[in-house]
């Protein structure tokens, strides 16, 4: 495990392994997302109160939890970069910010749209919604901070500190619905029985979408990280070879 992580911290290893992994990841993600979305959109029974509107939850819930997971990942990479000076960790952290930002935006948008008919409002300043909005601003702030630096290392360090300062917000998002009165409902406790609340016929498709979207999240992170490797390691011999091969294909097209 440690050995594997150690190898992944080498840009060349990461580039090769992620390249080999990609087709499998794409296939698995398409499969899981396809099944989960069709199942959730067309085959699960409507909710007894919200009718068909609750189908938004199939994307809202996984988008929100992956956005939070993405923030944790960015913070862990930030710590690894600060402590061990692992360049790979900074590249992954850089990839996390825009992906996490779009997933948070997705969670906020789908929640708002769901809230209009359900709550009677698209936005309120309760603890859950406010802390989620703060997470989106943190992602945007990290991106802005990095673009303000010319030096790759200095920018990476500044972003790492900001990421670590903001990481407290994630458990606040998670437990806001328990610690305070909020308009947002708490986490659903899933039931294995079909005669109780949250039966498997409703949550099983959500599991498919959840893992599918997680696969997509990994793909998005890997794509950005690979680009970053090609740019930052362009002086390395092996990147020269990779670029040469890619350029030869491009030339052939032109």
């Amino acid at each position, binding site marked *: 495990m440690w050995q594997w992580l150690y190898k992944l911290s080498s840009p060349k290893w990461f580039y090769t392994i992620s390249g080999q992994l990609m087709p499998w990841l794409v296939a698995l993600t398409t499969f899981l997302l396809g099944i989960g979305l069709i199942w959730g959109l067309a085959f*699960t*029974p*409507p*909710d*007894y*109160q*919200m009718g068909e*509107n*609750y189908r938004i*939850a199939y994307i809202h819930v996984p988008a929100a939890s992956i956005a939070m997971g993405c923030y944790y990942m960015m*913070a862990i990479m930030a*710590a690894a970069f*600060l*402590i*061990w000076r692992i360049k790979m960790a900074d590249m992954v952290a850089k990839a996390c910010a825009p992906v996490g930002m779009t997933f948070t935006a997705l969670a906020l948008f789908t929640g708002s749209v769901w809230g209009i*008919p*359900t*709550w*009677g*409002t698209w936005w*309120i*300043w*309760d*603890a859950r919604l406010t802390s989620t909005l703060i997470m989106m601003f943190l992602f945007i702030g990290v991106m802005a901070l990095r673009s303000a630096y010319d030096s790759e290392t200095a920018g990476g360090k500044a972003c790492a*500190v900001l990421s*670590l*300062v*903001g*990481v*407290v*917000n994630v458990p*606040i998002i998670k437990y806001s619905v328990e*610690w*305070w*009165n*909020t*308009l947002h*409902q*708490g*986490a*659903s*406790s899933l039931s294995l029985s*079909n*005669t*109780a*609340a*949250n*039966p498997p*016929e*409703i*949550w099983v498709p959500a599991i498919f979408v959840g893992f599918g979207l997680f696969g997509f999240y990994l793909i998005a992170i890997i794509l950005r990280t690979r680009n970053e490797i090609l740019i930052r390691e362009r002086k390395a011999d092996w990147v020269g070879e990779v670029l040469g091969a890619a350029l030869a294909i491009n030339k052939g097209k032109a």
Partner: protein
Amino acid sequence: MAAPRKQRMAIVGFIVAGSAIAIGLVLFALNEGINFFYTPTEVAQGAVPDGQNFRIGGMVKTGSLRTGELEGTLVEFLATDCAQDIPVSFTGVLPDLFREGQGVVADGYIDSNGIFQASQILAKHDENYMSAESVAAMEASGASCDP
């Protein structure tokens, strides 16, 4: 482990722990203010100063709802947390999920007659997703007052 590495690890720990403590203290100080609404019990205990605008949250007491004929006319109901009831009066359009036995959050003030005059009504959804069949099965086993 090398000494500078240990030092950097301590700095990272300090950043995370420091910001966690700082934000924890802020949240602790704001604790009441972060609550989105007061429960009827808190209102009965006098947690809210008179004449102030605030939100109450509870359940629409079953059997207490009286609505006008037309949509957008006067609505009256009791908001309850099973211990205390507060009469609420509202004129306007209600959200889809507003119904008896369901969670509700109302924004407004308590008038001189002790009636909560709401300017906005929001429905609070619970964390349960159910199909019509499972509801029938649940209802057969008996419902409870649990806001």
